[in-house]
């Protein structure tokens, strides 16, 4: 049921198809933001884009058990600053249940339900 991307969002999905997570950046302040848009939500001034490193930490998460297959929704705090919504992927339920706030995660791209390449995260093995 995903709608066609808004025009200003098209380049985000083109970048995603190429394996990159695009962030907006406020030209006036240099501050990155998410989701990208043509103006800065901080100043109303112009914005450009940067590519995220793909490194981040789990800010908050929840495993949904009522779905056909349990999944983990999360807010991931990117190294660049913004907190973004995503899923933390794992190979099985015990992997999902092992996720903790503060865990380091890394960006991966997989097709979503509609087949579009979409940014997700996976937990980096912690000691």
């Amino acid at each position: 049921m995903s709608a066609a991307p808004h025009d200003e969002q098209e380049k985000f999905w083109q970048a995603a198809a190429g394996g990159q997570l695009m962030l907006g950046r406020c030209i006036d302040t240099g501050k990155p933001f998410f989701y990208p848009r043509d103006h800065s939500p901080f100043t109303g001034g112009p914005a450009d884009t940067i590519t995220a490193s793909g490194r981040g930490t789990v800010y908050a998460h929840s495993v949904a058990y009522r779905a056909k297959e349990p999944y983990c929704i999360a807010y991931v705090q990117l190294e660049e600053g913004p907190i973004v919504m995503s899923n933390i992927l794992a190979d099985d339920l015990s992997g999902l249940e092992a996720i903790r706030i503060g865990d380091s995660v890394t960006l991966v791209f997989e097709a979503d339900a509609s087949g579009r390449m979409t940014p997700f995260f996976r937990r980096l093995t912690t000691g």
Partner: protein
Amino acid sequence: MSLKGKAYIVGAYEHPTRKAVDRSVAQLHADVALGALKDAGLSLSDVDGYFCAGDIPGWSAPGIGPFGIAEYLGLNLRHLDTTESWGSAYINHVAHAVDAIAAGKCRVALITLAGRPRAEAERPDAAHGKRYDSPEYDFEAPYRPVVTNVYGMVAHRHMYEHGTTSEQLAWIKVAASHHAQHNPHAMLRDVVTVEDVVNSPVIASPLHRLDCCVVSDGGGALVVVHPDIARSLNRPLITPIGAGFHLRQLNGGYFDILKSGGVRSGAEAFQQAGVTPSDIQYASLYDSFTITVLVQLENLGFCEDGKGGRFVQDGGLISGVGKLPVNTDGGGLCNNHPANRGGMTKVIEAVRQLRGEAHPAVQVANCQLALAHGTGGQLGGRHGASTLILERE
């Protein structure tokens, strides 16, 4: 400046149904409108201002939206306010009605809410309707944020930062069940224990089934009037004295998930009212989930940040037992959650307490100052928070 005396709530009515198989949404709106007007001693023909939100039939359809329900009810209006902030809308509407009355825009304001998600077997997360034109949609929908898991994220973060436990959250449900046992209309009237809550299935970690509110049909209505009219009626004089609203946004990805809009809506309302949280004798707090109450208690200043768990445990919210009686009708956790929007019933129970019309087992003695607060939208995402402080004269 305090709102005191600018307008009065003279009518309040809660629909007794919890499953409205044989009544349409429009009929439910009519039921509650007539019920609240009868409570006030007024009639439909007295109404000249109407306040409604996205639960009205036809809201999202292209075309007449609010005009349809106003015509159906038979209202002759010179003021219409359709401010939509989901579950908190009706708390906003009271404040807006006071402003409209003070500005001379209307003299008798009617506010209605109704819905039948249970009869329609509608999923709570579907209640917000078509969203996919909204600019954030494509960046979030792929990750399946249903209502429960977004609140689950808030609860996990609170546990992480403050050491809050599932048992502490469970006390919020326990308190609601202690109150609901006295409410003959409540969906869930059995008293539950902390163990019942934490042993119920996990829906979205760390929230259990009994951390979640009910899905119910029903509705409610309020009548707010000019002081001259209020004094002509034989009803207790309940006046809003402070109100606040804040829209909590995600701000480009920079937000604190534990700081709801209540931080600012509450501060604004308390400042306007000229009172402090310790003055409040009764509080209605939106309880979509147990965690919602915990965060709101902290954000409104009833306890320090991070101390919510200790505040609610051991019956802290049970009338006659704890420090602050909360949701003495059983709240959304046990009583009802009509149209998946909790703000209306929050105001109604606060009015009951101030009138001395709550159930005797939960009535706060000589209740003169009460608060109603709601979070419309999602606590862990964007939401509109509304705070209302009411006084009995």
